């Protein structure tokens, strides 16, 4: 039996739908108009429609594809590394955390720092003359890599991102791992399954929805990275560390190409939507 009837349901949903339409729909509509307009900061309130030239300009821009490539590589690699390390930590730290739950707080600490602050912090930490890391590398080995030069910047940015966000993946996996019923593990043990086999054939499949969701969330966050990359390298020498978000920011503010920037963000939105549908399909398949 339905708890509320259809009319009541509509009445309850109307404020939420109205809220979403106003606060999400209105800016989205404005952005769509800007993306097919000639517009500048002076003409923000009176853009003139000019067709799909902005989309053509974005798709023909080699820097846009460079930014897409950077964001894609950054998103996939960071999400993979964060999920693998987070999974490893969840499996091996769960027994310890069951006894000493207070250790969870320091493990979560990196999540408490704003990404821009992490960027500024690492600018100091990695600075050849002011930073402790190069200092000790010089002390111990007589040399230190240039962490932010054009050859190492990408790897450094990956490590910084992974160090900050692995705790997030770990937290999700820890909760999923801890939620696996004890009886399942006991039954596997009685049947003679080793810990590794139980992990591979029983626990990981049970955690699969969490694994997929964690990977997806971390991929999206990595894909749209801005703050720490911008604070650490700007957009990199010759634009070498320009993510898609930085590309849009630079086109909007620095280039004054508002229509082009908004068109790029619409392309990004459509690509994200495609990924969302893909994920929906994967998780739906799992349920079936």
């Amino acid at each position, binding site marked *: 039996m339905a708890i509320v009837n259809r009319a009541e349901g509509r009445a309850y949903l109307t404020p939420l739908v109205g809220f979403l339409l106003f606060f999400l729909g209105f800016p989205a509509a404005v952005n769509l108009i800007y993306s097919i307009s000639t517009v500048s900061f002076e003409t923000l309130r009176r853009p003139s429609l000019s067709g799909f030239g902005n989309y053509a300009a974005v798709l023909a821009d080699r820097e846009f594809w460079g930014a897409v490539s950077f964001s894609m590589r950054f998103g996939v690699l960071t999400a993979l590394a964060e999920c693998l390390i987070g999974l490893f930590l969840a499996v091996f730290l769960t027994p310890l955390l069951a006894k000493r739950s207070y250790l969870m707080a320091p493990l979560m600490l990196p999540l408490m720092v704003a990404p821009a602050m992490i960027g500024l912090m690492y600018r100091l930490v990695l600075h*050849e003359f002011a930073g402790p890391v190069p200092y000790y590398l010089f002390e111990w080995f007589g040399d230190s890599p240039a962490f932010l030069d054009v050859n190492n910047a990408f790897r450094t940015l990956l490590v910084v991102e992974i160090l900050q966000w692995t705790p997030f993946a770990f937290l999700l996996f820890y909760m999923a791992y801890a939620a696996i019923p004890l009886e399942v593990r006991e039954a596997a043990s009685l049947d003679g399954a080793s810990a590794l086999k139980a992990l591979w054939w029983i626990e990981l499949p049970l955690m699969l929805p969490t694994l997929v969701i964690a990977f997806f969330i971390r991929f999206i966050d990595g894909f749209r990275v801005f703050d720490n990359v911008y604070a650490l390298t700007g957009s990199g020498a010759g634009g070498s560390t320009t993510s898609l978000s930085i590309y849009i*920011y*630079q086109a909007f503010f620095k280039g004054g190409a508002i229509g082009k920037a908004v068109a790029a963000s619409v392309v990004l939105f459509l690509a994200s939507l495609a990924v969302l549908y893909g994920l929906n399909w994967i998780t739906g398949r799992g349920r079936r």
Partner: protein
Amino acid sequence: MKLNRTSFSAAAVLLASVALPGISHATVTVLGWPGGSEETALRATVEAYNAQSGIADADKVELLFFNRDGFFDKLQADMAAGSDAFDVNLVATYSIGRYAPYMEPVDLGADASKVFGESVLKTMQFDGKQYGVPTDLSLHFMYYRKDLVDALMQDDAAKKKYAEIAKEHLGKDLQPKDPDSWTWDDWAATTLYFSKQVNSESPVRYGTVLQMKNLLFNMMVFQSLPRSYGADWTDKDGNVAVDSDAYKTGLELYKKLYDAGASPKDSLSYEYAETNAAFGSGQAATALQWNAAAADLTNTEKTPAVAAVTGIVAPPAGPNGRADHIHGLGLGLNKNAKNKEGAVKFLKWLATEEAALLYAQSGGSPALAPDVAAKVAKERPDLVKLGEFASQYGYVMNGATSANALSVYELQAKEFTGYWAGQQSLEDALAHTKAGMQDLLKK
């Protein structure tokens, strides 16, 4: 319940006592230039202004700072949106054209020209109207280690080594010189001599610190080198001239020094703060840096490793003599200011001799008329050099005060750093820059 009510009341009173004074007393909001000596000086000056007996509570000043990185982008967005979050905002010579539509001219009074001089007031003018009070004049000093250079000049074996390095890396017969008479080649030879990677006997790790991060302000530091070889953004007919031999020479010299290891490997991510840290650590022999760093780099408490042995000269000379990029920072009136009367009152006070001297004594770098500068010459000898270098070597590129000047610097930063990092050829970098500048400067 009673306890809850009491708790809520107490919390409300506490919050009100903390928040309300800040709101009620500071009704002229000033958006200043964040970080560095400019912020320190402005804070001290505003404190003195608020402490004056004649200032009504409603006209007291509160300061607001964004991040330095991306400052002008945020300012543009705020001003274009008609923000009234600040009454007074920062303005710079290179951004007046961009922000003038959102600002109101101010009359600073007849005495302002006695404090700053007409030429300095002009750095804050657009279309013949005064848009701000000039607070800081910015140009570049060549900072160098006196102890290292003196030792080099007195050691015959070192001189021989210097000559060998100059011949090998620059293909020129050079001898060490007094820094005040350096050409760019002399400076380059000196930086190579003091780089461990070139000369393993060097007492310091690097000969210089190049600021090569993809950042518009770094292009201002760089461009004095090609300028001294005759570079300009456009020629006399208005054609973009960035692909000139002068620019090529400058760009190639930076790359040569970076590739040879004369500057830290991380230089491609260096800006103001990193350069100061590198020079201040005592591991670099020279640094071309903003004049704003002088107060810190010569302060024995702030930079104990090198303050006592830091010398300052103007940037080296090229075939066209010496050149020193110059621009003014200042404060002007937001068109949408909520308290225009209070804001104008503050700006007028800021243009008085009393305020300008206070600003200078607090670490700022105002360009003062000679007789006013003489009053702080003992505490701030760098201000004397500032006036001297500005008048003798100061320049502004053609087009550098246009509405898109900042975008031109951004473009140069991206393309030039790409060349220095080895990601594109010099020809490609200059061709991309030229095409972009043609588009930006015609708008």
